[in-house]
């Protein structure tokens, strides 16, 4: 027994010593991410995780400047278009395309390539038409009347209606996008297979994907923009669902960057010499109330719920400052966000009084539906338990049902069942298009995510007005009206916006979390 144990320890020590890092010839950055990205197709991308990878390989006519943190949507900057003009009626966008840019396979970038990509998404007659891309891009496609190549290096888009956000929507990813792929590479494979052989123009080229293990990219040394040409050779994403695995891998040097460590571990990691990078994410946690439930039909009860929630405490004590309280439906980093806005804030006394007035002096039982979510946040179920304790203070007994993300989205799409009183999920982007899928009557189950059966023709009208506004001021004005109606009715209850948090080794520099769901990996450095 003893010699055996000795042998085992010896073997372990041997194995450990051989695992020590040898000198690497090329500079590699490994990032541990929260899960497996979906298909790496720019036009059908879904999940922020997917966008994080895809955004390195692809670009649109315009992109966003992700080099500065903050609470405002990152600026739109030229990318595959050098410059653009917008006609006086706000309907015609003419893009002057950047010359001398080639795709990773050597194909030239030009107006024909832009048309080829747009055809894939929205021209049913084109051979490369992709149904899934068509469905995934409604949010910008719905306003496009036509597009054409004016000449070899000029691309024109004509809209049906003014849209003050249109340029921003051209630069957005996450859920579909207009990011450009090589026409030759697109034509070479069936649409479904293109995700396995990505070819774009971005600062990184695709090398290899091994499911569950890694997605490997190589720096595109011929990238057109010297400011964003990577100063290292390889970028490897390593899916690590488990947060403690990510942290331990960072500590042992197996990865250079760990996405989303737990709030509890950030001081500890800092004390160990790791860097913690934070930045505001353009997202907000919102409670959907089931407006078909008897109690939830009463505005006093809805307001009481909002007033029972200690958002400041949650942000400071539970999330240790890695979140900010939210009161308005307009998310931070999106249009019309106002930092000082509050509505139905923490007031347990007032909440109890409202409940008594509504006839629930003896208490009220509700059920909350929650999900641990996909990626980007580690605290969600703890939030539920925090709110549960808050609600208990004012006499509301809340039970929690946690669903996995798959069942949760299905439930949202089918609408909340009788007996479910509320759900919470985070949503939000730099654009406000997500509100169309949440607040509008047209998004009632099963046509979207208006899962609490909210119907207000005034809001429907304002949503259309906001989208088709000619100017940003007009758009923001309409959005503020929507926000104030939701506050007054308390039909949706925003609670908090989490910060993005990333832990890196000391060697990593210039890692910035701008208010976007994906960071710019091209500017990151490694000593």
């Amino acid at each position, binding site marked *: 027994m003893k010699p055996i144990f000795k042998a085992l320890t010896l073997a372990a020590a041997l194995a450990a010593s051989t695992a020590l890092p040898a000198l690497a010839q090329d500079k590699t950055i490994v990032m541990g991410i929260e899960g497996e990205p979906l298909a790496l197709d720019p036009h059908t991308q879904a999940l922020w995780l997917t966008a994080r990878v895809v955004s390195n390989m692809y670009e649109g006519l315009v992109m966003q400047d992700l080099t500065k943190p903050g609470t405002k949507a990152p600026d739109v900057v030229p990318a595959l278009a050098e410059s653009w003009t917008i006609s006086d009626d706000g309907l015609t966008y003419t893009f002057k395309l950047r010359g001398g840019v080639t795709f990773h396979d050597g194909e030239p970038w030009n107006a024909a390539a832009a048309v080829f990509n747009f055809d894939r998404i929205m021209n049913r007659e084109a051979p490369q038409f992709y149904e899934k891309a068509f469905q995934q891009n409604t949010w910008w496609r719905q306003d496009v009347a036509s597009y054409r190549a004016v000449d070899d290096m000029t691309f024109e888009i004509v809209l049906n209606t003014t849209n003050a956000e249109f340029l921003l929507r051209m630069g957005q990813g996450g859920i579909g996008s207009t990011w450009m792929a090589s026409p030759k590479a697109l034509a070479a494979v069936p649409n479904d297979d293109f995700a396995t052989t990505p070819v774009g123009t971005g600062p990184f080229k695709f090398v290899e994907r091994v499911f*569950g293990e890694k997605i490997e990219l190589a720096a595109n040394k011929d990238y057109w923009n010297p400011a964003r040409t990577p100063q290292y050779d390889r970028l490897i994403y390593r899916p690590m669902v488990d947060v403690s695995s990510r942290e331990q891998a960072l500590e042992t040097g*197996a*990865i250079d960057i760990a996405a989303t460590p737990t709030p509890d571990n950030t001081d500890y990691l800092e004390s160990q010499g790791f860097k913690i990078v934070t930045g505001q994410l353009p997202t907000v946690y919102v409670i959907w109330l089931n407006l078909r439930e008897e109690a939830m039909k009463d505005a006093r009860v809805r307001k009481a719920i909002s007033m029972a929630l200690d958002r400041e405490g949650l942000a400071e004590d539970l999330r240790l400052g890695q979140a900010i309280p939210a009161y308005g439906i307009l998310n931070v980093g999106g249009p019309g966000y106002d930092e000082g806005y509050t509505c139905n804030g923490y007031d347990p006394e007032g909440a109890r009084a409202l409940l008594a007035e509504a006839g629930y002096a003896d208490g009220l039982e509700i059920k909350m539906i929650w999900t641990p979510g996909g990626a980007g946040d580690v605290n969600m179920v703890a939030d539920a338990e925090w709110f549960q304790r808050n609600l208990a203070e004012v006499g509301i007994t809340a039970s929690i049902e946690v669903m996995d*993300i798959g069942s949760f989205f299905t439930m949202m799409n089918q609408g909340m069942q009788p007996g479910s009183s509320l759900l919470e999920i985070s949503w939000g982007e730099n654009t406000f298009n997500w509100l169309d899928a949440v607040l509008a009557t047209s998004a009632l189950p099963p046509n979207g995510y208006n899962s609490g059966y909210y119907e207000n023709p005034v809001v429907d009208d304002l949503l259309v007005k906001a989208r088709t506004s000619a100017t940003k001021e007009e758009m923001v004005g309409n959005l503020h009206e929507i926000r104030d109606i939701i506050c007054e009715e308390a039909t949706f209850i925003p609670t908090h916006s989490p910060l993005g948090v990333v832990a890196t080794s000391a060697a990593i520099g210039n890692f910035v979390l701008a208010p976007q769901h994906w960071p710019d990996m091209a500017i990151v450095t490694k000593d």
Partner: protein
Amino acid sequence: MTKYILMRSFQVLPVLLGVTFLVFLSLYLLPGDVTLNLLGLAANEDSIARLRAELGLDRPFSVQFGIWLGRALQGDLGVSHVMRTPVTAVVLEKTGNSLILMGAGLAITVVGAALLGPLSAVRKDRATDHTVKTLTFLLASMPAYWLGLVLIVAFSITLPWLPASGMYDFITPGGLPDLTAHLFLPALTTAATSLAIVTRVTRAAMVEALARSHVTAARSRGVRGFRLLYGHGVRAILPTFVNICGLQIGYLFGSSIFTEVIFSWPGIGQQLYTSIIARDGPMVQGCVLAVALVFVLGNLLADILIRWLDVHRD
């Protein structure tokens, strides 16, 4: 012997068919729909219906199963709904990774039990025996997910000796030594329960064997120590040993799912778990088929080995 092998192999088929049918049925009943995960914001009645048609989810159950089975027989397990990549390749890769983990677990089990079992039997009712008995008893009561965490705390955090996640270190891809280092803690975690069970059974069988007449006769002839043990005792307990090792495949699979989750080991169990969460039908099917195949074939192999030992016993 050949006849026996053929007959047993033939019996495996209806079982596999039954398993795949049951899983297909259960997936059909699984709440949630992959289309919603894929479409996200873009989900509406129209887009859902179109995507369901594209993925073949609108067809009747029997048709879906028939098509799947026909392709599976040709080695094509379809395309993952979520990853848009052929399932067969992913499943083969992940099964390979799991087999590495389980193989290492089985090796620890076999070697450990072959050493500890007989040792304990020879020293029956003495200190060594009691130590082994207590140790194996405690190991058998340990949840793999707890043991794994304790090992991480001990050998990855407190004593930073061994890596606690993944199969390779991508900063310095180090080949076999790197894999061995990554394999050590997960394999130990996976093997714990099996090691305990096999050791206990081996010990009991050996105690019985040592009491048998031909062994006592050999002992009286002056055969002692390891010659007695491995010359006479082992031969007697070999079928029991192989049998109980064969039965461990199920346990190894059971603990390996937790091990894979805790140690981020990219294996079939973890793939199955994440595919269930994502409602990725073809992937779940493929994983289940792979697991059932490994399980059934492993047991078949053990049966054949036992039979062979039986036939070739003098």
